[in-house]
């Protein structure tokens, strides 16, 4: 496939014009405020009145703030629940619904399942939080169900116990995220030439084999997009923690975004919050750059 642009030389420059709205928006809404935020991180400010310059003080605090390091550590765990698990489940489910169910049952059943699995994405997280709170509370539905099937010994204080809180919140996160991965993957599947699947079937390949050798490589662009976006979302995760545990118990589920929210709006230590979010932003940036470079190298190797 030819890689030259269809327009040569001076024609190319005209395309830059199309970038103007995007860039204006970017500067006004993203870059400008980020710079302001960066400047704020060197001040002590309560949100009203004039900020007071304090130099590196906020960053020094950060280094010894247990909450900050705890939240960073939790982020690694959130990456699993927001990225790895939903992507894997999404892939398997998408392939199952698209390949197996559509074939063995009907297109309509497949669509029905897809719609149903996507529904958690539509629910406002504040509402999901309340509902899951009812389920996960120690006197809630989850424990009641465990009791009913005879697994009463496993009932736990899901949200209140520091050991189980993060997994519990992760469960809710997975519940919400799978739908997004599923839909994007299924949409991508419909562009794969079915002849490939037919050929594989004729060769005797089972559903799993087809998944691994055809689906995954062909879905590479979608997988990259989903992985990158969910990874970034993992670094920014806020709403589930806000509604379920408020960072607790005892900071077990704390994430950087919640920490910054806490300091921006509750303790009103805006300068400190700005410092934490600057660090968070830099980390996200670093990760994204690494990921994008990786994707580019994969693309160069030939998709």
């Amino acid at each position, binding site marked *: 496939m030819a890689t030259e642009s269809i327009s040569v030389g001076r024609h190319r420059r005209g395309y830059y014009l199309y970038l103007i709205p995007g860039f204006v928006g970017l500067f006004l809404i993203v870059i400008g405020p980020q710079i302001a935020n960066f400047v704020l991180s060197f001040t002590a400010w309560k949100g*009203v009145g004039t900020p007071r310059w304090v130099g590196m003080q906020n960053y020094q605090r950060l280094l010894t703030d247990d909450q900050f390091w705890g939240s960073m550590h939790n982020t690694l765990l959130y990456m699993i629940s927001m990225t790895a698990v939903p992507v894997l489940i999404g892939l398997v489910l998408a392939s199952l619904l698209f390949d197996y169910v559509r074939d063995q049952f009907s297109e309509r059943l497949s669509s029905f399942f897809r719609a149903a699995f996507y529904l958690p994405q539509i629910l406002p997280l504040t509402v999901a939080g309340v509902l899951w709170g009812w389920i996960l509370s120690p006197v809630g539905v989850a424990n009641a169900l465990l009791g009913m099937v005879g697994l009463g010994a496993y009932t736990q*204080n899901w949200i209140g116990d520091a050991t189980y809180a993060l997994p519990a919140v992760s469960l809710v996160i997975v519940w919400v995220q799978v739908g997004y991965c599923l839909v994007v993957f299924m949409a991508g599947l419909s562009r794969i030439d079915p002849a490939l699947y037919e050929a594989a079937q004729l060769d005797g390949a089972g559903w799993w084999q087809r998944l691994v050798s055809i689906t995954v490589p062909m879905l590479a662009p979608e997988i990259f997009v989903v992985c990158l976006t969910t990874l970034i979302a993992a670094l920014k995760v806020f709403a589930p923690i806000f509604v379920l545990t*408020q960072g*607790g118990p005892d*900071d077990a589920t704390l994430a950087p975004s919640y920490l910054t929210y806490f300091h921006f*709006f509750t303790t*009103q230590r805006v300068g400190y919050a700005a410092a934490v979010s600057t660090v968070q932003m830099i980390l996200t940036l670093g990760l994204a750059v690494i990921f994008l470079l990786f994707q580019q190298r994969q693309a160069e190797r030939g998709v």
Partner: protein
Amino acid sequence: MRLPRLALAAVSAFALLGGTALAQDKTFNIWWFEGADSAQGITWTKALEELKAAHPDVTVNFEQKTFDQLQQSGSMILNSAEAPDILEYNKGNATAGLVASQGLLTNLDDAYTAMGWDKILNEGQLVLSRYNELGVYGSGPIWGISTYGEYVSAFYNIDAFEKAGVKVPTTLEELTAAFDTFKAQGVTPLALGGASTSGQHLLASLAYTKADDTWVQNYQGLKAPLDGAPYLYAAQTLTDWLAKGYITKDSTGMNDDDASLQFTSGKSPVYVSGTWNLGNFSANIKDFKWGQFVIPTPKYSVGSTGNLWIIPKGSKNPELAKEFISLLLSEKYQTEQANNGGVSFAADAAKVTNPVGANASAVFAEIAAKQGLGFYPDWPVPGYYDVLNQKDTGLLQGTLTPEQFVDEIKKVYDDAQASQ
């Protein structure tokens, strides 16, 4: 929604050109966030109706706000042109104190005497209305007025107590004895939302039983590093109760909704929480008789005057705002409030027919009379609410010993105290 804004700007400009700001005096914007069904909500709506009737030429615009919104962006709103003429605001250093110290509010010192509020309120009820230049309560000009009270007490199941032969406790020993009796009968005596407000309120209620005047003043005023003794006692008592089975291990994960449910469904006969439950309990508990008793204490209980009515600096109708406050403080509406189940300070006791309101107002008056309002435990430090919740959970789960608990909360407190 650009067009209406432009139109409004044009009209205002025109009015200004006309030499008078007539267009603006004719509207009165008021916000509050108490629920429409709460005692306050009902009373305030009625009072607003009377205000409307008294000023037919003024357009009264009421907006029902949410606590979340004002808590989060309150100072942002007050710092803009979108602030109303009068609004309900959360009392305390971190909220009312902050915006007062930034010059965003109207000083009410003159109105206090001019409008006759000094005949109705005493200094004790003004403690949370005053904030100094640093935004710390207790001294300084009057920046807001509260028209109701709130406190934390023990709600109890009257029928369950009668059946178990337990009398209402008047000392802490009697309280633990009562718990013992229930435990012996196989009932978990105390419902507790360990992950939430009722957890820290119980802790504070216990701590306050060991608090003296100096301690409370220092604690609330952020005047000195934390003296952890009262809290140590409370933490030890709590772990003791947990060990004896008076509270369930599940409490750590329960929030107030769950705990309240444990009480209202009859599982536990006692629930320690605040007067904000009165509306829900009155409306929905149909299975048993219930009442309240104050947690036995020498002087201090968790409680305070209610949220404040504040008048933003840029209010276009401060006179009407002050008139509204007067209405709410009047005997007529204080009685009305008590009859709606609310906690009033100036009701005519003879005219109050609602037993819930009568009782609540009486209890509040009793606590206030001995200057026993210890305020809330999370006030001194912004964000302390979350800290207390978290450490409380740790304590109940056993990951923190009472000593460690006190150390942790002391660390945060001392930090804030030093960096004032």
